[in-house]
């Protein structure tokens, strides 16, 4: 065999293996009914978030149009989810609200990862007082009920959707520090990392080549779960009047407004709540499925 074909075979083999591995993961994932339900819900949600304004029958109702002639109509062929106290089509507002919800989830989870993962890596690699300090601060944050802390932060910054997202991000990162630090510690003591270090790999190489890729699956799994939880958190702040302000089409705020119209005009609060429930359910099931495939030993 010539050296060229030997090299080709060498590079082809891992690629083929990775392909086969991916196929196995996809097969395992698709075998689980609940995981597939989660995936389908999330895909529908993403589709609505992308094209909501085009899909909505009354897109102008999203931001503060008023039509008192059509107020508090029950669900019908024209208004699938009914209309609210100023005559806005709830179906349209729920569809358009999906984008806000997605934004919130992505922002909160993204910021939390950007803060938490580097801190976790540093704490795991550095050890000593640096790690001790980071972990103690993390512990303190974890010892306050997150929602309360977020309310306190919004209380200081003032209500609004931007501040609500910022507040949620600020209480969300400690989970990632814990996760990544634990994973880094266990990776750092693996024999192959020792071997790499013995061969002269510096700490940065160790982090980026050995540690970070191994943290990736649990981070992805946690991020999927956190999308759901962040959406719940933002809706909660919206419900309390600390997040998005009416008439902004945010599901939590819509429930808060609709609350005053129970029990006779139940559709005002029922449908936005169902939207939250299915979205969060979708992300949770997706996260569960991903964990079963990517990270079966973690719970």
């Amino acid at each position: 065999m010539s050296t060229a074909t030997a090299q080709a075979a060498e590079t082809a083999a891992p690629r083929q293996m990775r392909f086969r591995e991916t196929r196995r993961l996809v097969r395992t994932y698709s075998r689980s009914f609940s995981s597939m339900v989660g995936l389908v819900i999330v895909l529908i949600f993403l589709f609505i978030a992308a094209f909501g304004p085009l899909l909505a029958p009354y897109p102008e109702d999203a931001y503060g149009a008023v039509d008192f002639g059509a107020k508090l109509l029950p669900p019908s062929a024209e208004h699938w989810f009914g209309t609210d106290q100023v005559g806005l089509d709830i179906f349209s507002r729920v569809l358009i609200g999906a984008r806000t919800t997605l934004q919130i989830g992505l922002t909160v989870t993204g910021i939390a990862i950007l803060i938490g993962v580097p801190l976790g890596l540093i704490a795991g690699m550095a050890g000593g007082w640096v790690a001790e300090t980071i972990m103690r601060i993390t512990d303190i944050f974890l010892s306050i009920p997150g929602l309360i802390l977020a309310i306190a932060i919004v209380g200081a910054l003032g209500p609004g959707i931007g501040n609500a997202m910022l507040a949620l991000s600020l209480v969300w990162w400690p989970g990632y520090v814990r996760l990544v630090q634990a994973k880094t510690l266990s990776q750092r003591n693996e024999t192959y990392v020792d071997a790499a270090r013995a061969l002269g790999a510096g700490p940065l190489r160790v982090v980026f080549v050995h540690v970070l890729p191994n943290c990736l699956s649990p981070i992805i799994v946690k991020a999927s779960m956190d999308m759901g939880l962040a959406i719940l958190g933002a809706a909660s702040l919206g419900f309390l009047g600390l997040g998005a302000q009416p008439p902004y089409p945010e599901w939590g705020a819509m429930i808060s407004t609709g609350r005053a119209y129970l029990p006779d005009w139940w559709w005002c609060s029922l449908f936005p709540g169902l939207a939250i429930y299915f979205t969060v359910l979708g992300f949770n099931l997706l996260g569960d499925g991903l964990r079963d495939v990517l990270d079966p030993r973690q719970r």
Partner: protein
Amino acid sequence: MLRLILKRLGLMIVMLLGLAVITFTIANVAPGDPARLAAGPDASQEMVEQVRAERGFDKPVPVRFFIYLGQLARGDLGTSVYTGREVARDIAQFLPATLELVLFSITIAVVFGIPLGVLAAVWQNKAGDHGIRLLAVSGAALPMFWLGLMLQWYLALELDLFPLGGRLGVFDDVPPKITGMITIDALLDGDPGTAFTALWHMVLPALALSLPALAAIIRVNRAEMLEVLGRDYVTNARAQGIGPFRIIAAYALKNAILPTLAMIGLRFGWMLGGTVLVEGVFDFPGVGLYAAKAAVSSDFEPIMAVTLILGAAFMVTNLLIDLAYALLDPRVRNQI
């Protein structure tokens, strides 16, 4: 055991200090003037200056922190700008109601969550397991404020099975205050009827509060049971001919309950936070409702105080959970 308690108490004091640093930081990095925040948005300039001098906001940051700590040490949690009442007094008044509600809720979650988790594990992949898991994934995805509203709408307004809200009906006599928890006070007073009425008032808010925790407990306990049931010591117990009930209810559960305990502690904290959402729905006069009202009106010091108090309550819970851990697991007990 004593050493463990002392060690954990020491750690808790450090954590409480850290908590105070966080609330202090939030209050001080907030855009705008901390004195104005404390005085409230409607205060006149003189009032702001007066508050500034009174609470030492004109001093350098480290000094202010020690002033803050001094106030906390004296039990001074500040004043509400709206009611003008001392926050510490308000919290002392509202906290028992919240504790009563949360204790009731966590009891519901544990009493139903652990057996359901065990059953799901025993019935793995059968119809019963699927049903229980559906409950678990739904519980984790339902917004508790919305669930509370829906329960209230259907069970209280439509079917009239439960009261709409509050702790007691308008015409019920409030028992003499001993613990501040009406069910306990009424029982101590020899009035089980009132205790039951109070409990009845808590059913709907407690259901809304407990469902996410119930879901989490089911998940963890199911997973742990599945793991433990596959362990060698369970095989051995089966090889000795020990019956399935004793194997599941004692040999396996006592091992599986340890990680579940940690989850229970965590969820207790989340429930304390959840009261902010649920108490408002049911007009239940606890610290959650107090904090929600304060937050909406930017009444700053009550929010900070509630953050501190609930954080501290969470820490105490975790301490208790750790002690329970040590009582249940001889390996932990011996390490200490």
